[in-house]
């Protein structure tokens, strides 16, 4: 029976190996056929032209824009909400807000997308801005949940020490407790980045999805994820391979983000939370 347990434990290794092999084997040939630089830095994506153009730079830029925008909106609100929940919230209110935040975390991305289509797009069009606002909302529960537990993990003596030195309540929280929870909050932000860059359905429904270089916040944009879902249904041959290669680029981005976080945590210790 212990062999069964061991094999089960190895299943995650097998899964990662299979995912890597199948993505790379199917996606890497496109890099060779299109040319690495033409593919990654080409600004024109027109798979139906003759000859077809497969440049995913607009999508890379698109993914970066919406992710940065989501972080700018989601992180301050999320971290401050976490401070409120961990340090300023009356117990009764907490019992109402906490399940609400958990509900936000569980709402499917299509529902967010549909909400965005109906409530945000009429105000800001199908644009980068709409996607940033919606993604900012979607990463809130991740940021709030993890930041809150990081804040709660800071030993109470830190706060009390600050108070004893004459700092006020919020000064102690913002200048002593918050920095002490720094690495936990950083993890929260990195997970938020991962969620925003990997989000697909909600972004498709509000971002407009034009595969060209965006010039302003109010223009439509297509992300890497959107590119895959929108065109995979009818793509064939090199087009299909280019889409899989788009997935490879996304996968590598995510790996880099996650590995740098683990490296950072390994170097600086996990801190509190």
């Amino acid at each position, binding site marked *: 029976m212990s062999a069964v347990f061991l094999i089960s*434990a190895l299943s995650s*290794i097998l899964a990662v190996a299979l995912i890597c092999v199948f993505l790379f084997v199917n996606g890497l040939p496109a890099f060779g056929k299109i040319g690495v630089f033409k593919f990654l830095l080409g600004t024109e994506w027109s798979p139906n032209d003759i000859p077809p153009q497969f440049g995913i730079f607009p999508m890379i830029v698109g993914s970066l824009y919406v992710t940065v925008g989501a972080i700018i909106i989601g992180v301050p609100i999320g971290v401050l909400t976490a401070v409120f929940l961990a340090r300023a919230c009356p117990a009764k209110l907490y019992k109402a807000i906490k399940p609400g935040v958990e509900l936000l975390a569980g*709402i*499917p991305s299509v529902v967010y997308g549909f*909400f965005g289509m*109906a409530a945000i797009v009429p105000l800001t069009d199908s644009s980068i801005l709409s996607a940033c606002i919606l993604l900012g909302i979607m990463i809130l529960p991740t940021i709030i949940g993890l930041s809150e537990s990081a804040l709660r993990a800071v030993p109470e003596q830190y706060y009390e020490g600050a108070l004893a030195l004459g700092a006020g309540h919020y000064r102690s929280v913002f200048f002593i407790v918050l920095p002490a929870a720094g690495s936990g909050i950083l993890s929260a932000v990195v997970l938020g980045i991962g969620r925003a860059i990997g989000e697909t359905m909600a972004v498709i429904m509000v971002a407009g999805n034009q595969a060209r270089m965006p010039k302003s916040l109010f223009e439509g944009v297509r992300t890497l994820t959107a590119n895959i879902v929108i065109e995979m249904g009818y793509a064939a041959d090199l087009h299909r391979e280019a889409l899989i290669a788009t997935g490879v680029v996304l996968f590598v981005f995510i*790996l880099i983000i996650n590995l740098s976080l683990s490296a950072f945590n390994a170097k600086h210790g996990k801190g509190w939370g």
Partner: protein
Amino acid sequence: MRKKMFEVFAAAVTRLAAAITLAVLLFLIVFILIKGLPHIKPSLFEFEYNSVNVSLMPALISTIIITFVSLLIAVPLGVFAAIYLTEYAGRGNKAVALVRITTETLSGIPSIVYGLFGMLFFVTALDWEFSVIAGACTLAIMILPLIMRSSEEAIKAVPDTYREGAFGLGSGRLRTVFRIIIPAAMPGILAGVILAIGRIVGETAALIYTAGTVAQVPADLTRSARTLSVHMYALSGESLHTGEAYATAVVLLVVVALINAASSMAAKRLGGKM
């Protein structure tokens, strides 16, 4: 004076942020309910889906089937893996480090990448075509890290005195695991499983190119089927069926709320026991 000003300012911003979060939550829920509730009709729950009545019943049934099959694959794997990591693996075991790294990697992979992989591996390489089983296998890999981590934490939380007591009474390691440790850790494992159900119910991107989008109840596991979320995405593309899409959103919201309530109940039982 400056000290006072900072306190007032900081109190204001934190309250404002919390108020924004709460407002967004309320607006979202009220918005969906107001738009969706009027469209909840008995006809939406008819067994047959056709172009006149875009019933969500087949999608609801398919959701249950796909959830069940995914759990059937992922829960034993995840729980057994957790047992290995907590009860069997020795200190400094190299395999354990690799398992942890890969589990972390898995939990960071976006669902569209799972979808691509499922399409390349299950649908194309294994030639399962768009099918319930291809979708369920893809989702099983996706929820595996969640099940593993929550089971591991639940098992770790079982006090060592339980193990020592069982060993002292002459029970072997395996019997201790199945008779003592798993039952004691059950609420925590369950809470993880319920969260996994939530992820499956909400998933779209990983399913479109693995389970496909057929809107009928699948006759068997080799047929294509769409879950509620996929159903909703398909409807949102057709301006004719906006009302039905809102109604589906309401159903999804209710399901998510129930799942969350169940999960926190299970977690509370764990807290009470230990």
